[in-house]
């Protein structure tokens, strides 16, 4: 946790303490304890409709991600409502707020709607989740972070999905060493965004490298929105890097690969899932990317109806958002909706649709399947949760709807199995 995050978290906690001291806190429980099968009304649940919060980047530079994840949330809940809602009885309404990917706004927006919603089905971004987490704890609220950091696995108030970034990096290195021509003697490097997102990937890479006896020869850290990457590519070339693991946002990834393509950097690139956008598949970069770039992510390629989860999702997109274009982040939002639904159904089963009821239900939630869109996640008490440890390797293929073709589907390396998720001091 950086000093900035600590400061935000501390200020947020102080603010909560102050409000609580004034008797203004909306508290955690509500009056929702009811009998099984007939949950009573509570904040965010009026007896027939459940309101869920979405605090995302709906404007600003990260809106390209936030809007997609929110679209995924929406399609899932449109589908669910058409089936009658949670447990076939309770319709879901989304309350959206825009934090512009700014931590101060994330805290503000959370506070603005927390009294109106039962839980948050999306809270976008690692720094924003870190900022809001103390409030979630104070309010007894559950939120699904749109972020794949390993921190979240052991946090009771968070409901993460998917294999954390660390797992992606571990499986990526395994694939390179076992099936892509690499060896323990290969010169492996990394290029990472200079923030917690970048560090998550680096942590996984370091873990796997140590276990496999590989030395990370060079790591280039960069600031988001750097204009020119020639210097870093020169440094990677000088270090003789044969494989570079890349953790970046798409706009930076484009400039990085552009600089690499110009100098014909000869190494292999494996990019963490958020590096990719489909525009790359039909750009001047495409020939270079097709030769040099692999993407590590989850699930299957877009349009692969052989995977039940993808088939169902495509049908629902056709019905509820027919104009939608293929996008990896959409799937994340859709899966968030799925897991939130599973949690709410557990709460209904327990007869308590209050915040406390939802939080208690999260401890009893078992394995949630995503039908191949992502690895199955074993929930339950935070200390024993087991996230998926599977990844998929994609190659660049402009003929595919999202520009990516599955190269190796849904595998888990021994190193990924050995990775221990520890509770962070957040």
């Amino acid at each position, binding site marked *: 946790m950086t000093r900035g995050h600590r400061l935000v978290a501390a200020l947020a906690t102080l603010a909560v303490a102050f409000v609580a001291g004034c008797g203004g806190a909306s508290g955690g429980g509500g009056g929702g304890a009811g009998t099984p099968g007939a949950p009573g009304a509570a904040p965010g649940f009026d007896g027939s409709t459940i309101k869920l919060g979405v605090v995302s980047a709906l*404007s*600003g*530079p990260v*809106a*390209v991600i936030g*809007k997609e994840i929110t679209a995924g949330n929406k399609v899932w809940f449109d589908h669910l409502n058409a089936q009658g809602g949670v447990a076939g009885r309770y319709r879901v309404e989304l309350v959206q707020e825009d934090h512009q990917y700014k931590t101060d706004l994330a805290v503000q927006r959370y506070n603005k709607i927390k009294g109106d919603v039962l839980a948050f089905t999306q809270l976008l971004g690692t720094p924003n989740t870190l900022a809001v987490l103390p409030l979630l704890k104070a309010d007894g609220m559950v939120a699904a972070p749109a972020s794949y950091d390993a921190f979240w696995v052991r946090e009771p108030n968070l409901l993460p999905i998917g294999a954390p970034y660390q797992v992606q990096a571990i499986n990526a290195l395994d694939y390179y060493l076992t099936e892509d021509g690499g060896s323990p003697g290969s010169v492996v490097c990394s290029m990472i965004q*200079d923030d917690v997102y970048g560090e998550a990937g680096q942590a996984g890479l370091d873990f796997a490298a140590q276990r496999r006896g590989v030395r990370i020869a*060079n*790591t*280039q*850290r*960069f*600031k988001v*929105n*750097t*204009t*020119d*990457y*020639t*210097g*870093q590519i*020169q*440094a990677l*070339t*000088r270090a003789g890097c044969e494989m570079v693991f890349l953790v970046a946002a*798409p*706009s*930076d990834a*484009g*400039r990085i*690969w*552009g*600089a690499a*393509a*110009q*100098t*014909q950097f000869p190494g292999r690139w494996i990019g963490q899932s958020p590096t990719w*956008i489909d*525009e790359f598949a*039909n*750009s*001047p*970069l495409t020939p*270079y990317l097709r030769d040099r770039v692999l993407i590590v992510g989850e699930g299957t390629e877009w349009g692969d109806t052989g995977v039940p989860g993808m088939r169902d999702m495509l049908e629902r997109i056709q019905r509820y958002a027919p104009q939608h274009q293929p996008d990896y982040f959409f799937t994340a939002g859709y899966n968030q909706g799925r897991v939130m639904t599973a949690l709410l159904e557990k709460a209904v089963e327990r007869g308590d649709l209050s915040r406390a009821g939802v939080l208690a239900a999260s401890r009893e939630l078992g394995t949630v399947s995503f039908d191949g869109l992502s690895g199955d996640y074993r929930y339950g008490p935070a200390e024993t949760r087991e996230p998926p440890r599977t990844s998929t390797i994609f190659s660049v293929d402009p003929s595919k709807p999202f520009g990516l073709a599955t190269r190796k589907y849904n595998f888990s390396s021994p190193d990924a199995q050995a990775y221990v998720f520890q509770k962070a001091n957040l």
Partner: protein
Amino acid sequence: MTALLQNVFAGLALGATYALVALGFVIIYKATGVLNFAQGGLLALGSYLGYTFTNSLAVAFGIAIVLACASAALVGAAFQRVVLTRMVGQPVFAVVMITIGLLFVLDPLVTAIWGFDNLQLANPWNIQRVVAGELVLGVRDLWSIGLTATVVAAFFVFFRYSRLGVAMRATAFDPEAALAQGISARRVFAVSWAISSALAALAGITLAAGPGGLSPAIGLIALTAFPAMILGGLDSPAGAVLGGLIVGLAEALTRGYQDQLFSWAGENVSVIVPYVIMVLILLVRPYGLLGTAEVRRI
């Protein structure tokens, strides 16, 4: 040696872009005494206009650049005539705040029209390259350097020999004396905004023509051009160009060798280099390298 030259070339190309943005800052400051904080927003607007001309209207790239610069110039001049004209004689601080307001208006305006997606500007440069021995020169970078050099030369001629250029210099030097000579300050102000906006558009398009494409964050480059302008001298067009090149070179060279030479300063030190240089130069020359020292009677 090749690596060094490669980094120097990257620095010059980057510096050329900074120089264009910094030049835009300086021209408005020199003519009106106002620091235009909306320069980044105008840059984004200009580059998105370029996208519309090339990708949506299928205009040839070269013509699209001209059209985008002309459109941005119109927007800049219109803003000056409609809004800032009413602020003549008002405190500079109030005008500066209005430019900040313009920045906050342009940002959502751009995303409302073009959305948040990363867009690929259709252009012949992108990752095309020229190989000279072991040196790889990006075509986009060569154009950035060439365009900046041309613009700087054109400005030199414009300010020195054209009536309007002389009028702008006269207004910048002594607005009241210029007015007494029949020079229209309003016209000069509008032209300076038009030129500055066109420069921002040109910088934006050269940036967006690269492989990173176009995103709403493109205007953030103005933040890095800011120290370039300050260290060159707020009122010196030549200083803006010099400052841009110094910052670009320093950034590129630090980036290329930070793991070898600057690891003691922490990782990613290239990010702070422009600001460190700015502070150091200001300590020695408070008005920048080529800025005019202000003389005040106390």
